[in-house]
């Protein structure tokens, strides 16, 4: 049990700066997910916490102690790798107990810990098998078991579900969450999958190009993204961005998308964007679920417009629709019974109470 702190951590490979001075505080027992596209430095950050990579500059603290020069084995961490990294010549039990055996734990203690972990992960029947006799999901459970038996201060997960098929990934995601609820060990989890990040994390750290874009709870990131990158990265299908500018017509602020399309801002939004320059190039950010079919009695802040649908994608529960505004492809979600068809016009409604306004040049959410 321990907190993890990163202070101005930098990692440089020759000329390339992979991690550019990040600060991060992870509380005891917290489940933190580092998420971002490939090459954003998330795995490097995790490997630096593990001690598998030296840090170029800054400090990493585990449980209050600076561990910059502490070798991995003395950091009291456990790691689960993307490709499992099980020892192929050892049985499941031997794989799980390897670390304990190296530290000369008493046999009875090793046995009880392995049995307990196997029971928790539901792999008791597989304990005498070799890794090659296991399926991908079972191997990943063993890899987790190997981490659990060590009873470490910190769990590190490096994209543990990326090699599993979609169905198994969902199942193992729940499994990992359950394990964390049981053992309550500080966990740092790396993934490029924003769904995994949202579902697992107490707090999500969104990384991009070696920097932290935003840290927050999943809900926070979803509803109050700080930058265009976070707004576009979190959520699936991704948030729509349409170039726009603010106008004043008769003392009322309008948001103008095209010559023909302009919406009045809801009062709350109008107040928030009061000081935004009226000439500035802006982006309207709106999530697909806030573009729906028009209803008979629209609520305040919900504006209607007509669009000719480009493509429709029936998903069963809802239908995704795509249409073009200002050359940008916009995605919306409508009721399957709303009558959306490829190439057909449809009256749509946009919920401006949930809109975001971004500075086009800086990408900052206003």
């Amino acid at each position, binding site marked *: 049990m321990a907190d993890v702190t990163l202070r101005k951590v930098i990692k440089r490979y020759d000329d390339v700066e992979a991690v550019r001075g990040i600060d991060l505080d992870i509380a005891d027992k917290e489940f933190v997910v580092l998420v971002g596209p490939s090459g954003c430095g998330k795995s490097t950050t995790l490997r630096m916490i*593990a001690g*598998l990579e030296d840090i170029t500059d800054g400090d990493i603290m585990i449980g209050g102690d600076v561990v910059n020069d502490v*070798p*991995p*084995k003395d950091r009291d*961490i*456990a*790691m689960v*790798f*993307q*490709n*499992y*990294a*099980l*020892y*192929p*010549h050892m049985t499941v039990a031997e794989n799980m107990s*390897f*670390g304990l055996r*190296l*530290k000369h734990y008493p046999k009875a203690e090793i046995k009880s810990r392995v049995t307990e972990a196997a029971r928790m992960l539901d792999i008791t029947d597989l304990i005498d098998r*070799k*890794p*090659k*006799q*296991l399926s*991908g999901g079972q*191997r990943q459970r063993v890899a987790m078991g*190997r981490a659990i038996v*060590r009873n470490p201060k910190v769990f590190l997960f490096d994209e543990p579900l990326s*090699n599993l098929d979609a169905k198994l990934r969902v199942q193992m995601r729940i499994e990992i969450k359950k394990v964390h609820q049981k053992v309550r060990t500080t966990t740092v989890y790396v993934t490029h999958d924003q769904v995994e990040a949202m579902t697992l994390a107490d707090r999500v750290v969104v990384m991009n190009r070696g920097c932290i874009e935003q840290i927050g709870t999943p809900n926070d990131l979803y509803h109050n993204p700080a930058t265009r990158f976070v707004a576009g990265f979190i959520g699936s299908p991704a948030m729509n961005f349409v170039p726009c500018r603010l106008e004043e017509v008769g003392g009322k602020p309008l948001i103008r998308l095209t010559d023909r399309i302009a919406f009045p801002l809801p009062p709350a939004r109008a107040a928030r964007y009061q000081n935004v320059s009226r000439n500035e190039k802006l982006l309207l950010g709106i999530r697909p679920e806030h573009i729906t079919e028009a209803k008979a009695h629209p609520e305040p802040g919900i504006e209607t417009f007509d669009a000719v649908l480009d493509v429709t994608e029936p998903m069963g529960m809802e239908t995704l629709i795509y249409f073009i505004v200002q050359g940008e492809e916009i995605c919306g979600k409508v009721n399957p019974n709303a009558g959306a068809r490829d190439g057909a016009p449809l009256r749509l409604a946009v919920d401006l109470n949930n809109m975001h306004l971004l500075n086009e040049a800086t990408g900052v959410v206003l």
Partner: protein
Amino acid sequence: MASTAVIDKAAPTRVVKYGSMSRDRKWALRWSYFFLGVFAMFSLVPPLYMFITSLKGSAEISAATNPWWVFHPTAANYVGLLTSNQFLRFFWNSAMVSIFVVTITMLISVPAAFALARMRFWGSATLATGVFLTYLVPDTLLFLPLFKMFAAFGDWTGIQLINRWYVLLIVYPTLTVPFCTWIMIGYFASIPKELDEAAIIDGASWFQTLTRIFIPVAMPGLIAATIFAFTVSWAQFLYPLVFTTSTDQLVLPVGIITTLIKGDVFNWGQIMTGALLGAAPPLIIYAFLMDYYIAGLTAGATKG
């Protein structure tokens, strides 16, 4: 039983296709058997001829009869050699040299390969290439300088190495260590990096990672290297011919040639018998180790 019934029911409706794919495959199979047959004949005829000759007496060998048939089989050649102290001495020398050389080679090349494959240090890549380049220097080029070196070493320290069987323990590893190191670098490099990272996080030292993870996982490579080192030291001819001369110091290949050819008289029956008996240990080693040579031992370590 249920599944059998289903298959039977489906059988009449199934259309069997003789596509170009299956025809190509059939021909590929025929050709491969043809060439395998030619190759097997090519490599098995000489030992067969040796075996036939080893069962003949000297008179029959020099007689103008069918060389592929034994008219008066005799075990005299075998009895003669296996009761000769000299021949058993050669055999013993060969065995000692080979076992020691294999041990020395493995003790050097396995840790060397591990270091070169895994520990990133300055110049490790260059060193790995350098190790292989030393293997490319032929022994015909090396035996003279080596002889001079050992002679000088003897003059200088008084320790006589030339004409002692153990000089071969120094000479043979110059052939076996580079190649075995190179084989093992390849095997170690094929082990996923995450495996040693997992071991390091589990608390293993470099040495423990080598002995408890790498050596067991790379066992097929280790066996391949062992077989190679054994074969090289068992069959080496030039070095023992140069470095050992007294009959009690000779190894088998040199011993057979120097003692069974007296002037221009070739004792063909015993030469063939000696060569056959000499070929037995490598065969036994191959057969024994092949059981452990299970390819794909790394299966299951990672995805794929």
